[in-house]
């Protein structure tokens, strides 16, 4: 080679070698950042636990987000949080599915002339909004903001934004607005608020219609309170409702009312208690306005026995700390406002207001409107008086009653701007879509009720090009050249917090993710005159058969969580239906019509009708039909003109048998336990099975023998455990087709069993980790084996898929991977990295969260000590709102499970088979 060539080549190569250095790719910077200590949550295997607040429903439960390698992989209820104190419901567990939802909006979209959505930048989108706002203002058309319920700083910012930009904020939209209750309290006490009910302070709880354990205001909080209340001796819970709810199933006694007779029941109770002279506190003019309902009339109207009504009044009188909660279906009826008023009066009469009903800690619903507001919006839209309509984190199009024809009227607005997270049918009705960040991706705070401040802190970088509502409002302010105060919403929040909280509070807030703040007492005075005026003229109507009750769904709240695949995969706790919609019907009524499960019927009311498959619901009143409200969007439900509440009980419904059957995924093989004692009859004490001789040597245990106790007195069948298990253990969601074939994959399921009288018992069924496990000896390849700590382990790598273990399992808790599990991107990011992925052809089942045991063991080994009691908490036990599931070491005589397993209430399912399960159930009573 010539010297000249050599130098040329040298120049070329060195130049080429320097070229990559010119790259602007900043992500490459992360590659060298390991020279300095790595960022939080980046280290593989090391998880980070961050505080946050759940945004899946308005309850605002505190969260602990487990972040692994920069991804949120598990949500847990935050222990100590004033709202939920550790528990989390199935919707909260499923909130991760919203974060990683494949149908999330990834960037702003604008509808073009042809009706197609075209992506555009945030810059363009926000400029467009500002221009349109300005233009509408000039044209004299109103710019409106309709938002879902917000609390805390976001509410203030939203108000500021509206004031500055001349946007009119409409009352916030929630279909579960509790408008009748708030209005009634406004009439009675001048406080149009939703008070905080203290079940844990009561010795007698009478709930009327309020679905405390499903959707009513703060279900996890109520469940937590219930678990505390039931530990007191003599706690009684009576639940009155026309239909059958999970709440009713868990009450000590469920009083089945005729639909619409709640007011009659309350009138009767008021008068009876008044006439007893013990608690008489009601002003005369009010008493005169009360409809006079005698015991006989009340019995006829409600359908309850006269004797039972008298006893109910007596129970209320005798109770030291009675509590009445009315709401839900009871106030979602044509006479709902009257029911709410009468309930408020009874609460006043029995001295609950101010003690067990706290207006000082009112749930933050003041900004929420009612359907009247939506009606007014519809009218204004029709008059073409709306310029820009901003809809933020609300789905009025899918939730509002069909009679309003909101989707049709929506088109009359000048520009419809939707701030939403999913690209669903409702989103397609907008002109401009601005993707909202998930609460887990955003900064924020929430004030679920007065006196509680809860923190939202990003657990991960936004997955898509999305922003939080606060960021959008601030940016719009800035672009309109209005004072925006802060550069970012984060700074805005920090400013607010620094202004309001002192240094110690701030630190506490940052560390624990919530703050309990002092609340001012609210003076309450019964405004007898106003109340009497409202009571007069209200009649008690009793519905004509059939009555159709649109019950709220524990799985989808008002329908908003219905698009999360996990919540369709989990069966409804009462009917065990997973996919599809169904009409619940009393077995006796179905028999009279010769209907069976899955038979199609046509339900009609007015000019609306729907074809639905029947599902028999033991315990349901014979003249009542029930469907989950969110599954019937097309039903044209009336609006109560007095309260603006949605009427959710339809009278005079027609029913017609169609003679064919539909496919419906009913997961329970039987509603009855056929006397098999899975849930023992409390009247009988279980026989202790004789010690059985064994062919094989017993397994030795040295240090640990893991066991679980499940307290059936506390279990409310809410299936939060099942949802938590899905997320923790990467259990695949298989979909409707496989559910119809009986191939659900849940490692843990809630089995509802009904007795002759229709009372339900709930049994969480999971791998029992038997000491004499029938699955172990039959596996030819030792894939099912007993580990030294008493776990019945499944070794996926060894499994050849004979399915003999599942056949031989008396509890039928093993799950086979019929297909290769599918995780539609980006759902795969949700998977727990601590767990092996299962392939098709492999058996899987509950592991007692062996990865959590391992984590605790590692920690204990680092600190050179044994694992402490309570250090291992399984995902199911963590999520349980009532703390029914305990886990620990059976060899440790100090442990909770040791004590509980030896309790008089302890029993094991199918003990007579000699399998010696490690799961001990504690029966009721």
């Amino acid at each position: 080679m010539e010297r000249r060539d050599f130098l040329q080549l040298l120049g070329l190569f060195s130049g080429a070698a320097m070229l990559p250095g010119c790259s602007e790719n900043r992500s490459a910077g992360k590659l060298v950042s390991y020279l300095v200590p790595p960022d939080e949550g980046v280290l593989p295997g090391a998880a980070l636990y961050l505080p946050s607040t759940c945004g899946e429903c308005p309850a605002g439960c505190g969260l602990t987000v487990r972040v692994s390698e920069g991804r949120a992989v598990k949500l847990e209820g935050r222990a100590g949080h004033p709202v939920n104190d550790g528990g989390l419901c199935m919707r909260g567990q499923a909130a991760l599915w919203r974060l990683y939802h494949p149908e999330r909006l990834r960037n702003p979209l604008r509808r073009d002339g042809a009706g197609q959505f075209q992506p555009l930048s945030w810059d363009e989108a926000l400029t467009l909004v500002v221009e349109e706002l300005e233009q509408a203002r000039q044209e004299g058309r109103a710019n409106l903001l309709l938002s879902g319920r917000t609390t805390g700083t976001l509410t203030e910012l939203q108000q500021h934004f509206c004031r500055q930009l001349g946007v009119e904020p409409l009352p916030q939209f929630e279909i579960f607005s509790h408008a009748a209750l708030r209005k009634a309290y406004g009439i009675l006490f001048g406080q149009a608020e939703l008070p905080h009910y203290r079940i844990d302070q009561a010795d007698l709880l009478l709930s009327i219609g309020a679905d405390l354990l499903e959707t009513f205001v703060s279900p996890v909080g109520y469940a937590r309170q219930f678990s505390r209340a039931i530990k007191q001796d003599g706690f009684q819970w009576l639940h009155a409702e026309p239909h059958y709810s999970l709440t009713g199933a868990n009450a000590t006694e469920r009083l089945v009312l005729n639909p619409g007779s709640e007011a009659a029941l309350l009138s009767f109770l008021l008068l009876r208690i008044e006439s007893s002279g013990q608690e008489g506190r009601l002003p005369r003019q009010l008493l005169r306005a009360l409809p006079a309902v005698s015991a006989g009339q009340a019995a006829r109207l409600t359908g309850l026995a006269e004797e039972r009504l008298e006893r109910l009044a007596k129970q209320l009188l005798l109770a030291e700390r009675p509590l009445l909660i009315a709401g839900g279906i009871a106030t979602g009826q044509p006479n709902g406002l009257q029911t709410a008023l009468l309930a408020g009066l009874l609460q006043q009469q029995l001295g609950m207001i101010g003690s067990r009903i706290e207006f000082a800690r009112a749930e933050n619903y003041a900004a929420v409107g009612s359907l009247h507001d939506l009606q007014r919006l519809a009218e204004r839209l029709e008059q073409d008086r709306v310029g820009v309509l901003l809809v933020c984190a609300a789905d009025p199009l899918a939730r509002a009653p069909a009679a309003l024809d909101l989707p049709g009227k929506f088109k009359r607005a000048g520009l419809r701007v939707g701030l939403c997270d999913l690209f669903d049918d409702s989103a397609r009705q907008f002109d401009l879509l601005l993707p909202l960040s998930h609460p887990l991706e955003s900064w924020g705070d929430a004030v679920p009720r007065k006196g509680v401040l809860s923190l939202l802190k990003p657990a991960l970088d936004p997955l898509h090009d999305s922003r939080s509502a606060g960021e959008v409002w601030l940016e719009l302010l800035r672009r309109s050249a209005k004072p925006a105060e802060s550069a970012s919403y984060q700074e805005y929040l920090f400013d607010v917090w620094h202004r309001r909280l002192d240094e110690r509070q701030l630190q506490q807030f940052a560390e624990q993710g919530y703050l309990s703040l002092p609340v001012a007492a609210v003076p309450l005075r019964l405004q007898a005159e106003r109340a009497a005026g409202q009571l007069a003229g209200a009649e008690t109507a009793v519905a004509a058969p059939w009555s159709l009750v649109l019950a709220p769904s524990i799985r989808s709240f008002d329908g908003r969580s219905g698009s999360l695949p996990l919540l369709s995969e989990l069966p409804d706790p009462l009917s065990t239906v997973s996919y599809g919609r169904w009409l619940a019907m009393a077995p006796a009524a179905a028999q009279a019509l010769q209907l069976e499960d899955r038979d199609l019927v046509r339900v009609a009311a007015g000019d609306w009708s729907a074809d639905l498959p029947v599902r028999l619901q033991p315990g349901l009143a014979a003249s009542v039909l029930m469907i989950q409200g969110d599954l019937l969007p097309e039903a044209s439900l009336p609006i109560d003109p007095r309260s603006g509440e949605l009427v959710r009980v339809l009278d005079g419904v027609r029913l017609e048998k169609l003679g064919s059957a539909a496919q419906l995924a009913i997961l329970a093989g039987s509603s009855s336990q056929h006397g098999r004692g899975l849930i023992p009859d409390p009247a009988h004490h279980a026989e202790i099975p004789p010690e059985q001789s064994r062919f094989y040597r017993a397994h030795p245990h040295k240090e640990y023998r893991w066991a679980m106790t499940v307290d059936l007195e506390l279990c409310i069948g809410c299936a939060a455990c099942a949802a938590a298990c899905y997320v923790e253990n990467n259990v695949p969601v298989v979909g409707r087709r496989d559910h119809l074939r009986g191939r659900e994959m849940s490692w843990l399921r809630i089995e509802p069993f009904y007795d002759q009288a229709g009372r339900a018992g709930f049994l969480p069924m999971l791998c029992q980790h038997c000491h004499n496990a029938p699955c172990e000896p039959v596996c030819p390849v030792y894939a099912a084996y007993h580990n030294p700590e008493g776990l019945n382990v499944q070794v996926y790598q060894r499994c050849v898929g004979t399915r003999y273990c599942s056949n031989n399992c008396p509890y039928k808790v093993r799950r086979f991977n019929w297909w290769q599990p599918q995780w539609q991107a980006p759902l795969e990011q949700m998977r727990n990295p601590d767990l092996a992925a299962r392939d098709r052809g492999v058996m899987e089942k509950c592991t007692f969260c062996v990865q959590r045991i391992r984590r605790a063991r590692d920690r204990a080994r680092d600190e050179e000590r044994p694992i402490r009691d309570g250090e291992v908490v399984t995902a199911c036990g963590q999520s349980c709102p009532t703390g029914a599931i305990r886990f620990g070491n059976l060899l440790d005589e100090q442990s909770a499970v040791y004590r509980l397993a030896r309790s008089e209430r302890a029993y094991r399912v199918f003990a007579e088979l000699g399998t010696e399960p490690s799961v001990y159930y504690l029966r009721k009573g």
Partner: protein
Amino acid sequence: MKSLAAREKLEQDVLKGLRRPGKWYLLGLACCALLFLGALGLWGYQLSRGLGVTGLMHPVGWGVYITNFVFWVGIAHSGTLISAVLFLFRARFRSSFNRAAEAMTIFALMVAGLFPLIHLGRVWIFYYLFPYPSQRTLWPNFRSPLVWDVFAISTYMIVSLVFFYLGTLPDLAIARRRLSGIRARIYSVLSLGWTGSHGQWKQYGRLYLFLAAFATPLVASVHSIVSWDFAVSILPGWHTTIFAPYFVAGAILSGTAMVIILVVPLRRALQLQPYISIDHFEAIAKILLLTSLIVSYAYLVEYGLAFYGHNQFEMELFRYRALGHYRALFWLMIVCNSLVPLTLFIRRLRRNLAYLFAVSLLVTLGMWVERFVLIVTSLAHDFDPYAWGTYTPSWVEIGITCGSFGLFFMLFLIFVKTVPVLSMSELKERL
């Protein structure tokens, strides 16, 4: 001289079967091969997609595939019974059937052996079931009946194969002598230098007797072990001590029925009427009748055990079997296996080949259904009522089942054209 002519005729008659195949034969063979290839394709589909293509579900983890396995192992049973047991009992009519029955045994076992593989979730590591020193340093679980199956079936396969081959040796030598060309050379290799010398016959006789004695316990053992797949479990309806004799009797019942199904058309097609007489059929029909009675007795005993045991799980299961979702199949099984064979008490019917053939078809169907009912009902309706469910086979399972019949009959058709279907050397003794 008469004897010599008869022998000559016998050899000619039997070896006629080895002539160039006719069009009906080829058509039948093609049909069977198509069925088999179709099943292979379906298995490939199942392998690529997963077991989700079957109708199997929770709680029914075993369905048509295991039914087929038990069914075909059962079919394989009569081979040993007819060749070994009847040989020991010196039952003369045995020689009319033993070759076909032995071939049937081997083919049925080959088919049966496929099903445990087809039903595996991860068939590509099926060898985990075999005891061999591996880097996993793990033996199979010798407590598992599925491992016992591996031993039982492979032992039975080897013994049956040796027994069959040994029995054909003299006939292969005859074929070598009477055929020419490439076929003569093949038979010459296969006949292992058989000359028919006195010494060879002496050794042969002793070995044959020994193998017969060795194979006889297998009649009891193989299907007993297969039955333990179920009896060792704890499921109601499976967990019972009667299973071993009950399964053996059932196996012989279905196997005899299959022998009749195979030999009746064979006799007609190859014009073997002089060698397989009605008397012989009658004798085998009696075996069928006897085993049918044993099986019926077992059905009764099962119900008796459930009734007297008064175990709620057992009682409910047996109620479900007779009156539940699969009741139609249960009653079909009773009709086919218990009622229809009773007609064979009538001598005239017993000796009517068409009728016997029809009865055998029904018994074969009934025995398949019996295994299905037994396997599926127990799984579908066990301890936890929440987990109850019903199973319906998918078209993939049905296709593979049809394919298994295709494979079986294909192998048998090939056998008919390649091996003398009657034991000429034994028949000569009868002359």
